[in-house]
């Protein structure tokens, strides 16, 4: 098994093809500077003396010290020359951002890709790409997008598509997902999905693996690597190009063979690998894996605050395969002691518990949560609140803030996991409020979802994963 650890630990990185504010500089040089990469950074440009405040060199050969890692943004036709220089300079890894290789489907591109693969093998330089974004490793300050989070996490991600890797990291960042390592590997002319899956399976920093792949270069080895990885850790795969037209688009994107959907899906099922169909579903599913231990069962206690959405909440839960058990008379009367019907006739103490507006009272809300937590007929709790224009700026906003503070304190006393649905209208002001609440509650391991269905589906799949492994 190849040990790829070295690709994540370069002590120097040269970026070829940068000039002041061109896209290569924006994408590769600036993130390194801004993410606090501690090694040496060498911009390479045939004319410029300085780029982004760093001394620039006319070529790799002119860099004084050793160069471990080269990021290449020069035109495809000039890459073989660069590769030869890298071999001479004893560069360990070249990441080729440049497109225009086999994915173009054209003779010239295919030939060029073969040529660089050949130079790579002979010169003992490993290649990532071409047609990819490379490595995001926040712990070491390596990144290809300045807005990526600077703090690392436990999720390892291998992505064939550069664009989708960026999209997922950013979508995930907004919802508190943090990554150990992300590798966008494009056409995979040397290092491929099998190498990276093997690496992540053994990587102690990655506790969960996700993959976005469009096709495979080394199918047999990849399946073995996937099997090994799935035995060790939860693996979630997002397969692009599952439909006929999708497969056609794959060919022009990374030049690989998409294969048929049914084959991949049944393979994933056999290996206990979770498959998702879109990015939103993927992020949703990552949240319980990141925040929770396995649940004891699928019985959920539902608690709604401020609205009459109990019915839809119960329907969504049941539809996703969760169990919404009826509460005992004893439990219902303990809840009634907390919210007497006379005090708020709009409340209901069945499961779902509807605390109505009384739920914004921190005392009522905390006590109700603690009471359901103690009941051994449920395995976890799902809370629901709703935010919209009416919550901004008025007295309701203060009530919400207080309830959230109470939730954080109460959560620490609970024995069971808690998730939360925040329904919101996604208007900018609401988003700010909702995003603030999400940030607070995820510190106490409460994952937040934007709809009943998405919460119920993600949690249900999380439970299924652990059931199958028992």
């Amino acid at each position: 098994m190849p040990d790829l650890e070295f690709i994540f630990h370069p002590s120097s990185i040269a970026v070829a093809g940068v000039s002041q504010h061109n896209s290569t500089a924006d994408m590769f040089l600036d993130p390194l500077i801004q993410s606090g990469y501690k090694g040496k950074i060498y911009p390479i440009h045939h004319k410029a003396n300085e780029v982004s405040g760093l001394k620039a060199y006319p070529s790799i050969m002119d860099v004084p010290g050793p160069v471990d890692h080269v990021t290449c943004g020069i035109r495809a036709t000039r890459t073989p020359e660069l590769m030869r220089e890298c071999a001479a300079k004893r560069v360990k890894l070249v990441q080729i951002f440049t497109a225009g290789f086999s994915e173009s489907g054209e003779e010239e591109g295919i030939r060029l890709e073969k040529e660089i693969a050949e130079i790579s093998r002979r010169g003992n330089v490993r290649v990532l790409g071409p047609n990819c974004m490379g490595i995001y490793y926040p712990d070491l300050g390596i990144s290809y997008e300045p807005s990526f989070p600077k703090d690392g996490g436990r999720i390892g991600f291998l992505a064939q598509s550069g664009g989708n890797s960026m999209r997922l990291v950013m979508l995930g960042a907004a919802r508190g997902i943090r990554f150990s390592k992300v590798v966008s590997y494009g056409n995979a002319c040397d290092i491929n999905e099998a190498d990276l899956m093997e690496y992540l399976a053994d990587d102690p920093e990655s506790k969960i693996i996700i993959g976005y792949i469009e096709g495979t270069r080394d199918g047999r080895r990849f399946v073995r690597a996937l099997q090994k990885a799935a035995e060790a850790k939860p693996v979630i795969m997002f397969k692009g190009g599952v439909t006929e037209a999708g497969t056609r688009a794959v060919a022009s994107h990374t030049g690989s063979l998409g294969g048929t959907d049914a084959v991949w899906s049944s393979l994933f099922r056999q290996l206990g690998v979770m498959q998702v169909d879109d990015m939103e579903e993927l992020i949703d599913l990552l949240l319980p894996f990141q925040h929770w231990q396995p649940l004891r069962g699928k019985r959920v206690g539902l608690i709604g605050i401020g609205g009459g959405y109990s019915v839809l909440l119960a329907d969504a839960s049941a539809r996703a395969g969760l169990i919404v058990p009826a509460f005992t008379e004893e439990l219902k009367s303990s809840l009634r002691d907390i919210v007497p019907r006379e005090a708020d006739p709009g409340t209901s103490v069945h499961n779902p518990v509807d605390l109505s507006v009384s739920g914004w009272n921190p005392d009522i809300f905390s006590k109700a949560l603690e009471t359901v937590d103690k009941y051994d007929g449920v395995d976890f709790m799902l809370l629901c609140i709703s935010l919209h224009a009416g919550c901004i700026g008025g007295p309701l906003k203060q009530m919400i803030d207080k309830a959230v503070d109470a939730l954080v304190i109460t959560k620490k006393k609970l024995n069971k996991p808690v998730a939360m649905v925040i329904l919101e209208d996604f208007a900018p002001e609401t988003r700010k409020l909702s995003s603030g609440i999400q940030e607070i509650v995820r510190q106490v391991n409460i994952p937040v979802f934007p709809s009943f269905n998405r919460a119920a589906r993600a949690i249900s799949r999380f439970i299924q994963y652990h059931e199958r492994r028992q």
Partner: protein
Amino acid sequence: MPDLEYVFHPRSIAIVGVSRDSSSYATSSFLKPLIQFGYEGKTYPVNPEVSEILGVKVYPGISDIPGPVDYVICCLRAELTPKLMRECVTKGVKVIQFFTSGFSETGQEKGIRLEREIAEIAHQGGIRVIGPNCMGIYCPSSRISFDASFPKESGSIGFLCQSGGNSIELVQLGNARGIRFSKVVSFGNACDLNEADFMDYFAHDPQTEVIVGYLEGMKEGRRFINALREAAIAKPIIMLKGGEGEAGIEAVASHTGALAGNSAVWGSLFRQLGIIQVHDLEELVDLLLLFQHSKPPKGRRVGLVGTGGGRGILATDSCEREGLAVPPFPEAVRRKLREIAPEERYHGTSVRNPVDSAGLDWNPDIFPKILKTMADYDGLDFILAYTRVTFGTERVAKVIDSLTETKKDLDKPVAMVVRHSEEPKTVSCAFEIQNRCHQSGIPTFPSFSRAARAISRFIEYHEQRK
């Protein structure tokens, strides 16, 4: 057929049970909205212990109000409602809406008896009742609302909703995405006016072009089905049926006291009548957006255009999964597109379907030509464009300008997926793009899956009506 028009046009409204506490329901949900919406009729708050609230004179009782009272909103405790009903009969009130809960939905003898009693008084005294246990009416053209933050403009969507909370939820969710309503009725336990009355009304209401219903159970099943059948012939109807599973059915009982019925029966009824059934509020808003902004595409063939190869693949997969076709372009179309965006100049651009416009940098000179060429190709029925929003890119604004400008010359529907990271910073930008697109009749969606699903159901609706 009952003519309920007068329900939506009261000349005076009394709100019984207002208190000095401005966060009380009566004040914040009913009095404040009337003031802020600029309701032009007379407003009479009623409370024997208060003389003025929010600058409006308060009356001790209904009978103390000098002029006639058309409409009463009741926020009193349940026990006090029969007495109020009798006063209303004497006063000649036409409609009374009960926000008050604690009736049949409690499942308890006392509440059931009270509800029967007010229904009886209503029947004998010739007063119509909305509720109890509901929010009542939002009718922007009459400047009546039960939430001060609802939009003040009218739209073409009529919404009948058994649940007060869900009615607020849908109007708010929709508001942020540009959905506008003609009339919304939250009718709760429906002890007098019920789902059949309002469905009937919406079927004939000229302000309402699309009808949405959130129902948990029926009071008058047979009449409702007849009303639904008649309405479905006249207008598109979208139904969200709450209380599908066992737990949901139980929740319905304690929510509005209705019997939810068997979900399979409802599902097949909706299918037979050509009614679109949805399962959540997000899907509902997605569909409404299409009905509000888009002409129906003639078929299921979509042309995809946007930035990023990986995104194109996901867009393609989403479309095909929902039964839309993403046909490859013939040589002639590809050649035309290549002439507009030559490989040498616009590196990384792909001219198959999806068109990957990465290399174009969303060039506002090139992009409209690409769009026009795709729209001119008669192998496509509509176009779905997609973009990712990164905070602060003026480029995105330019694309939207060129997109909305080009759209005017196209005779095929265009929709757009605007993907953002949900980060508050990017949301503002996405929000602006969305609003501008909607103004130009381009519906926008937050993900490929949701766009593809909504468009496919929109097309399906029109296919079935052919």
